[in-house]
């Protein structure tokens, strides 16, 4: 799809300035740097030498050591902000669903903009961020890095992203386990309709990662404003159900609310902070819920 790069609207950008990405482990600890740790990085405190690899910045080469040993070594320093933010974007077919009232604003569009906001927050405070687009057989992946270029890459990746297929199975998701570090912050943007997605974040949470989950819902799923005959199609399974909107409404709303309550319960039990985002709400609202004033202490 030929789209321009995604931009954060100015009003959302101004609201983002009040936020900062914080993990649960930040609470009660202060000190130099936002997230102190023992990981290697480009900080002030020396950590170790390592051999030069193509792609390392030349300014990080220790030239005095080169004079002594005739080999390139790179000084590694302790990273001041070692927490990496992982943005997991569900890109299965169900994410392409949009409301009929606003057909150009799908779940995926909202998720992309939300991902951009998170990246902006991470970049503002110097955290590294990476992302993964979760799609059956097509796991898009970017290692966490900081800086402006990472932001540009995210924009390009998101512009290319198209929803399709189903949620990836466990084998595809194996790549995820290798990369997400022990204290990384994981944000999942998904409709959370797929059991595999829930299982994945439950497992991540059990493994000590801090996981935040935003359930993306359409207005039609919240309100079910249908009247008349419809053929409801599941974009992932291809199943269809023919029915009259009005007749189905009460039962659906009841069952859907029950399903959401059950999901809430599961996520609470797993220690996953979560919120739901409906497409007619401002995109940065979940971020305010997670990182706004008083959100963590509450």
């Amino acid at each position, binding site marked *: 799809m030929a789209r321009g790069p995604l931009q954060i609207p100015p009003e959302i950008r101004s609201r983002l300035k009040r936020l900062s990405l914080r993990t649960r482990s930040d609470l009660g600890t202060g000190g130099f740097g936002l997230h102190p740790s023992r990981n290697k990085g480009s900080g002030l405190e020396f950590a170790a030498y390592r051999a030069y690899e193509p792609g390392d910045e030349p300014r990080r080469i220790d030239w005095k050591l080169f004079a002594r040993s005739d080999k390139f070594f790179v000084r590694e320093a302790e990273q001041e902000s070692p927490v990496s933010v992982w943005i997991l974007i569900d890109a299965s*077919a*169900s994410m*392409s*669903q949009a409301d*009929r*009232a606003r*057909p150009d604003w799908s779940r995926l569009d909202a998720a992309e903009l939300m991902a951009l906001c998170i990246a902006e927050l991470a970049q503002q405070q110097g955290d590294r961020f990476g992302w993964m687009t979760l799609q059956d057989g097509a796991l898009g992946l970017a290692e966490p890095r900081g800086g402006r270029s990472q932001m540009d890459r995210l924009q390009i990746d998101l512009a290319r992203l198209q929803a399709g297929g189903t949620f990836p199975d466990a084998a595809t998701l194996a790549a995820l386990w290798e990369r997400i570090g022990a204290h990384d912050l994981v944000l999942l943007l998904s*409709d959370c*309709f797929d059991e595999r997605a829930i299982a994945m974040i439950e497992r991540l949470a059990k493994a000590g990662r801090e996981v935040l989950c935003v359930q993306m819902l359409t207005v*039609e*799923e919240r309100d079910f404003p*249908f009247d*008349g*005959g*419809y*053929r*409801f*199609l*599941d*974009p*992932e*399974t291809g*199943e269809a*159900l*023919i*029915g*009259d909107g009005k*007749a*189905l409404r009460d*039962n*659906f709303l009841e*069952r*859907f609310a029950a*399903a959401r309550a059950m999901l809430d319960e599961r996520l609470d039990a797993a220690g996953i902070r979560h919120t739901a985002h409906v497409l007619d709400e401002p995109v940065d609202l979940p971020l305010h819920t997670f990182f706004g004033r008083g959100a963590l202490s509450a």
Partner: protein
Amino acid sequence: MTPLLLAPLGLAALAALVVPLLIHLRRRTEEVPLDFAALRWLEARPRPRRKLQLDEWLLLALRLLLVACLALLLARPAVLGWEDDSAQVIVAPGVDPAAARKVAGPDAPLRWIAPGFPEVAAGAPATGTPIASLIRQFDAELPQGAPLTIIVPSVLDGVDAGQLRLTRKASWRLIESKAGAEQPAPPASPALAVRHAEGQAGALRYFRAAASAWSDTPRFEASTGADLPPRASVLVWLTPGPVPQAVSDWIGAGGTALLGDTAQIAMPASSAALWRDGAGNALVEGGVMGAGRVLRFTRPLAPAAMPALLDPAFAATLRDLVSPPARPPMRVSAAAHAPAGGIAPFPLPPRELAPWLAVLIALVFLAERLLATRRRRFPA
């Protein structure tokens, strides 16, 4: 005021009310395909029993109203007794409009007594209209109880032989006009155009003498040709034998022809003797042919056969024969011709409501279109 339908069978068109009802019946068989990821929480349930359910009540009501109005239009609704009872003033042509306005008052509606009864402000109508007949018509078409004022000049032209009797007591107002200003000139003497064969010139003298007797400047011409004179002239056709078709056509188109006894022509069926001598024998017979008149001598134009040629009264008689019939007297002193009332009123035709209904239909149609095409009806 009685409403009625002039063509009640038109109400059968009300059967068309079914059409919008059918359009608005909810089509439950219609299935809009829709992506819906939360399908698993939808419970397939048997379709609700088909109830008669209708969509968009307001639009349906408008459409029903539209069809009903159209059916009513076909039934030709009318009302009886819904009439304009305001005072009417009619003015005879020839009256000065300013003077008529002074008599009638500044606000009264002034109409000419002319076909169609145009407003006085629209300009003077053509003269020569049958005034009395038009006054009777206007009175007959006016609802009972509407006062009528008739403004006429002191000398009224265009009346007929009947006395003016109306259904109401009309106010008869006279305005002094320049009487006799348009005194018609006495009709000119007829122009004679004689066509004769060679060697027949003997009869010419009687006609020339007659023409000289009619006027000091006689209008007379004679030739042996067959050329036809202008239509206002009287053609005297003395050539023996059958009358050419051109002459018959000339007569049929409005000419007057006097034929000699030797001319052969099929005389019209309405022919009658127009001139008889003292013994009661017909000398000239004739009748109407097409738009013209044809006359024929029944005897040779010789004093031996027709002594009347030498009679002193021949010129006057001939003139009476060939002159067009005189206009009946149509001028009367208006003061003596005041209308009398007392005729039984005529039943007025019911007033049709079709124009009003057409406006209503147009408005309803507009509203229906506005409602049917408004943007909110078609969510993107």
